[in-house]
């Protein structure tokens, strides 16, 4: 059984159940409302913000729960506190690449770190409970807005200018004066300030900034769109965030494109600021221990594969264009972007050696071993030849057959068995980093390390984000709604001269500004300043010293 609709005793208008102030004349028709929850009855213009029914289904119960501001604020608070927990230790995507997470958190942060990991806090922002909180926020936004917005729309849409005297008295700003001769003038002055005028006999309504009331509902709509967009991120195909590692000179396939696109790293450039450039920065740079980078750049050639059919097959690459990817200047193709992320200069590329005899004299030319795909033999001249008999990129031990065992295929700790021959006799030696061991006895020659060269590799980030339009649109709408709600004020002034001059005013925010606008007009027309029942000192003029 529903609460009955309420018929106003004064003007006869039939109001929806729960309405406090008559929608037509503003008289209090229902004082049986929750005064704790509704402190200012004019906040929603006296309309019923929640319709009550006795038969509450589970959906009704859920709905009512989420329309509560207290619930909404609590959800926001819980989300804020949860978010702060994620900043205690770095999230998983901020820890160094390739490190095992459990290891990292335990090593660096001890038991607390381990607990953090076990609870899943290292991936807090995509954890199931955080997602549910966001979902609850969305429901709260929708429910609270609909429940308040629709009744408000109804009551603000067809406002009558004629209001009951109790309505006037109920407003925070209210004034009654005996001389009514200046009503027209006051109205004209107000109209000059942008107020729209509506009248009914000698009752008048002056209104401006109506749009302001919709600010919150617009910004909530924006937020809902934003939340929808961020939810889409989890849907397949909407979001790609991958690293693309390209060594200088290499061409690699771009992931997630089904082999359609390839990128070549022609050159990776790092520029540093010159500490003797003659600029204002010289002194700072000279004082600093580190070099300051001025630019990271990867000069790429972008290719399209005409033959993308089977995985692993040789691509038929057609050059699309050249581009220089720099920080703040990504390369765009299709729905993707390639960003300059970082670089890697730590992988060894080659090692250069030279042969020396027992007197330390250098024999022949230097030879360079390419660590990725080394040659077997090196003719160094003077009748000497060096052959690489064995090689381990990441040397760990020698097995029972005398073979060099490698731990990984990455050249981080290279070791070689070199055979030095002059055509007749051969010598063998084992070369590791900083250590040379003769294999054959009494070697006359020794292979000496000269220098090594590292690879330059660029690390690019491949990004595709189809959720971006939703999120951007949502947030822009939010900002517009926020601006409308904050910077514009909805001001209404009711005037009647039934019995002397009666004026009352209401605004959704900034009574200070309303008074500042209204009082000079009243003063000009010979009236007193409007009475503000919430102000302490009623004699204060607007530009007053606040100090007593």
């Amino acid at each position, binding site marked *: 059984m529903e609460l009955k609709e309420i018929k106003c005793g004064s003007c006869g208008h039939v109001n929806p159940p729960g309405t406090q102030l008559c929608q037509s004349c503003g008289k209090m028709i229902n004082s049986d409302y929750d005064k704790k929850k509704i402190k200012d009855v004019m906040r929603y213009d006296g309309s019923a913000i929640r319709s009550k029914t006795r038969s509450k289904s589970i*959906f009704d119960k859920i*709905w009512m729960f989420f329309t509560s501001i207290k619930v909404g604020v609590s959800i926001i608070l819980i989300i804020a506190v949860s978010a702060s927990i994620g900043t205690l230790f770095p999230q998983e995507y901020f820890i160094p690449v390739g490190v095992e997470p459990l290891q990292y958190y335990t090593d660096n942060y001890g038991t607390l770190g381990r607990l953090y990991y076990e609870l899943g806090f290292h991936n807090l922002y995509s954890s199931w409970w955080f997602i*549910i909180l966001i979902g609850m926020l*969305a429901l709260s936004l929708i429910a609270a807005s*609909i429940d308040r917005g629709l009744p408000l729309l109804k009551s603000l849409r067809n406002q009558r200018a004629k209001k009951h005297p109790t309505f006037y008295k109920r407003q925070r700003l209210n004034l009654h004066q005996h001389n009514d001769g200046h009503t027209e003038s006051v109205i004209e002055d107000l109209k000059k300030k942008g107020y729209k005028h509506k009248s009914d006999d000698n009752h008048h309504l002056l209104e401006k900034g109506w749009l302001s009331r919709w600010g919150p509902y617009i910004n909530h709509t924006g937020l809902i769109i934003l939340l929808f967009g961020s939810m889409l991120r989890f849907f397949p195909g909407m979001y790609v965030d991958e690293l693309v590692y390209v060594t200088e000179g290499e061409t690699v396939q771009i992931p997630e494109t089904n082999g359609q696109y390839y990128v070549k790293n022609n050159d990776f450039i790092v520029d540093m600021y010159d500490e003797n450039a003659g600029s204002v920065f010289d002194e700072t740079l000279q004082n600093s221990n580190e070099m300051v980078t001025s630019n990271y750049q990867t000069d790429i050639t972008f290719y399209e594969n005409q033959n993308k059919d089977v995985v692993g097959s040789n691509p038929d690459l057609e050059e699309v264009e050249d581009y220089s990817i720099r920080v703040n200047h990504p390369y765009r193709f299709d729905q993707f972007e390639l960003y300059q992320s970082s670089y890697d200069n730590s992988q060894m590329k080659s090692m250069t050696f030279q042969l020396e005899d027992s007197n330390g004299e250098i024999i022949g030319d230097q030879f360079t071993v390419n660590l990725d795909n080394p040659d077997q033999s090196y003719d160094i001249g003077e009748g000497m030849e060096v052959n690489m008999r064995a090689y381990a990129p990441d040397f760990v031990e020698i097995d029972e057959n005398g073979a060099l065992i490698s731990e990984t*295929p990455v050249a981080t700790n290279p070791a070689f068995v070199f055979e030095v021959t002059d055509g007749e006799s051969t010598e063998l030696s084992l070369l590791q980093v900083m250590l040379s061991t003769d294999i054959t006895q009494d070697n006359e020659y020794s292979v000496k390390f000269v220098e090594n060269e590292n690879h330059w590799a660029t690390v690019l980030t491949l990004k595709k984000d189809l959720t971006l339009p939703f999120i951007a649109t949502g947030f822009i709408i939010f900002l517009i709604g926020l601006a409308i709600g904050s910077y514009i004020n909805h001001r209404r002034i009711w005037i009647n001269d039934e019995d002397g001059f009666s004026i009352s005013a209401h605004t959704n925010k900034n009574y200070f500004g309303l008074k500042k606008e209204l009082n000079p007009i009243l003063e000009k027309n010979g009236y007193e300043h409007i009475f503000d029942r919430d102000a302490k000192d009623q004699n204060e003029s607007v530009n007053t010293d606040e100090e007593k």
Partner: protein
Amino acid sequence: MKKQTRNILRISIILSIVILLGVTLWFNLTSDSQAVQVGDEAVDFQLETLDGEQIQLSEINQEKGVILNFWGTWCEPCREEMPDMNEIYNEGNEDYEIVAVNVSEGNQQINQFLSSLDENLSFPIALDSNRDVTKAYQVSPLPTTIAIDKNGIVVEKQEYQLTTDDIYSFIEQSTSE
């Protein structure tokens, strides 16, 4: 608002949110496990072998079952299982093929390893130097061995060293109808 409209509105909004949340959570949970599993269709690929030939999975798979063995010379269990695989392969392999997919290495390392073996390997060694096939199959630990039947379906997968029994089992699975 009419009671009926209000009810429809409330129910549909609440349900939509619950469903969307559910779907989101489901995607979130399942996004990590995308590796090729038993029952999936095998991804076709084409690679060059050590001998310089091109092999394509689908071509071989037309007539025979295929056992893919992802390996590397630095991987000790891979090195250990190779001779066993070779011996069993040499017993007869009309119905199946073993393709040893080497992950990321250059010829020098592979040849160095092969020359250390007592016997030459009889099955083809495919060179996946870009890791394209390794990534397509989401192979993580090495060795990983995958059995594909004649219908192109993955019927077995093992992410550690094969014993001789394992090898026979893989052969049987890839050749069974």
